[in-house]
């Protein structure tokens, strides 16, 4: 009996007019796997995430979640199957308090009491307690990212997608975030898009490199970061 992977993408393609943002990408993610996606700006990472979450309809290809075809399914349906995402630009409820944000995420299923428990647990995990009553719109960027991660945890997904979770964070916050991701990974599968190489080194095992909509290389983090092609398209620019 073969093991059904958590997520498979086959020939996934997204064209915007004449531009092919994502070009025939194949990707397989196992249960409780942590995968990092890197690549220069415009490589198609966020577009890839948008297709996985139903925010964009793929031009071609197929996405399966635990064997179930979710290609082009509605965003809320995919979310209900257990895919949670922290988007690149924080998507939070600005006019609501931190507690309310996390509560709404937790309350889609089960009783109000259960939702409250889930929400409190997620806030504890992220240390959001002291700012629970604050309006999210008034928080600093780093804190808003944490609130968004909190909402994703509170919805208790099977697969967590994080699009640049460390962007705009202080070094201390980055260290905390990497510790959190490793902790989440004990029970959940994650795909993390990130530019910060130090951060990637802190968390990564397997890294997939996107370049111009295609997968350039997919390997263990050490070998990927030593790869000359990766340096050329991506790291080379930073070293220069």
């Amino acid at each position, binding site marked *: 009996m073969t093991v059904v992977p958590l997520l498979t993408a086959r020939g996934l393609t997204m064209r915007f007019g004449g531009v092919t943002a994502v070009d025939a990408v194949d990707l397989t993610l196992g249960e409780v796997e942590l995968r990092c996606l890197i690549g220069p700006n415009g490589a198609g990472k966020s577009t890839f995430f948008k297709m996985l979450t139903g925010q964009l309809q793929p031009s071609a290809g197929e996405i399966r979640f635990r064997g179930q075809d979710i290609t082009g399914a509605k965003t*809320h349906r995919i979310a209900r199957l257990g895919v*949670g995402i922290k988007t690149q630009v924080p998507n*939070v*409820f600005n006019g609501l308090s931190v507690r*309310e944000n996390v509560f709404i995420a937790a*309350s889609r299923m089960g009783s109000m009491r259960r939702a409250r428990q889930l929400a409190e647990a997620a806030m504890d995990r992220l240390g959001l307690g002291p700012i629970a009553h604050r309006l999210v719109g008034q928080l600093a960027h780093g804190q808003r990212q944490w609130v968004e991660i909190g909402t994703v945890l509170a919805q208790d997904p099977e697969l967590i997608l994080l699009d640049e979770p460390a962007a705009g964070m202080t070094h201390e916050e980055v260290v905390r975030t990497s510790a959190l991701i490793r902790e989440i990974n004990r029970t959940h599968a994650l795909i993390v898009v990130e530019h910060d190489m130090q951060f990637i080194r802190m968390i990564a095992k397997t890294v997939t490199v996107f370049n111009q909509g295609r997968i350039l290389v997919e390997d263990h983090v050490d070998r990927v970061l030593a790869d000359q092609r990766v340096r050329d398209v991506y790291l080379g620019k930073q070293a220069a």
Partner: protein
Amino acid sequence: MTGARAEWAGFAAMIAAGVLLLVGLPMVTDLFGLVQATLFVAMAVLALSQGFIWGYGGIMSFGQSAFFGLGAYTYAVATINLGDSTLPVLLTIAIPAAFAALLGYFMFYGRISDAYVGVITLTVTVILFNVMNSTAGDAYHIGAAQLGGFNGIPSVPPLNWPGDPSAALDPQQIWYFAAGVLILVYALLRGILASRYGRVVVAIRENETRAMLLGYDPRLYKLLTFTIGGAVAGIAGCLYVNWSGFISPPVFGLAQSAQIIIFALLGGLGTLLGPIIGAVAVQYLINAIGTQQTLNANLLLGVILMGFVLLVPQGVVPAARVLLRGLLDRGRGVRVTEAAERRA
């Protein structure tokens, strides 16, 4: 949780104030005052429908008058035909709600953008206005009820005790009914907003994408909100026609639609008390000007609206809340500094 307790206290105080007004007003005012107050209450219920779907649901409807007028016409036509007003009252809720559900289904499941929801609702009320306007002549009737075109339907029978058409309510009893409906609608909306459904409605207003990413279907929530708004506007129409005893197409008109928006804006979006206060204040003003005829009411309304948009854009109730909180904080701050000085 102290926040929840304060919320309950606020809610209880509001209901108590409402009941006090319902019972107390007939004791302190004459019949004319009471009849006027009945109109204010009808408008307050109408404003609540706008405040609910716009202020909480983020749905910009320019045409709540469509459901208001539909409620009023439904009552008139059904009561003239049936004699007994019991079923017609229920119909004034059901028919506008059903119409709102149908319209909302096409708007929200068609994924029409917010601005176009405004355009479509506005168009719908204008269409209803024109349709009712062109029903003059004997050919246009529903059962025994002549629609009467721009002249409308005169002498609509008032409410009666359930099951007894001969026992019509007098104006004071209609006041009790109207004020009771306002209290009930307010309590119901408060309950809805405190529920999980209500909290998701507000979350969708804040960020539709995030709500979807959490697994909520915004279309369904907006449709339900819009339908509830239609039902509330419908019962407001029932109260209105019971106040006036007569109904004509201007209930669907642009002036009526604009007024509802002004009620909600002046009072404050994102509150329920605000639209009630806005409706009473504006309707009071219109009545006062109407009797004196020295100034055009629409002109004054325009000036007031512009003044508010420029000076108090958030509306009366939110502004008052901020002011009150500021005063409380200052009071507390003074005490804290005094204590610090004493320690020093």
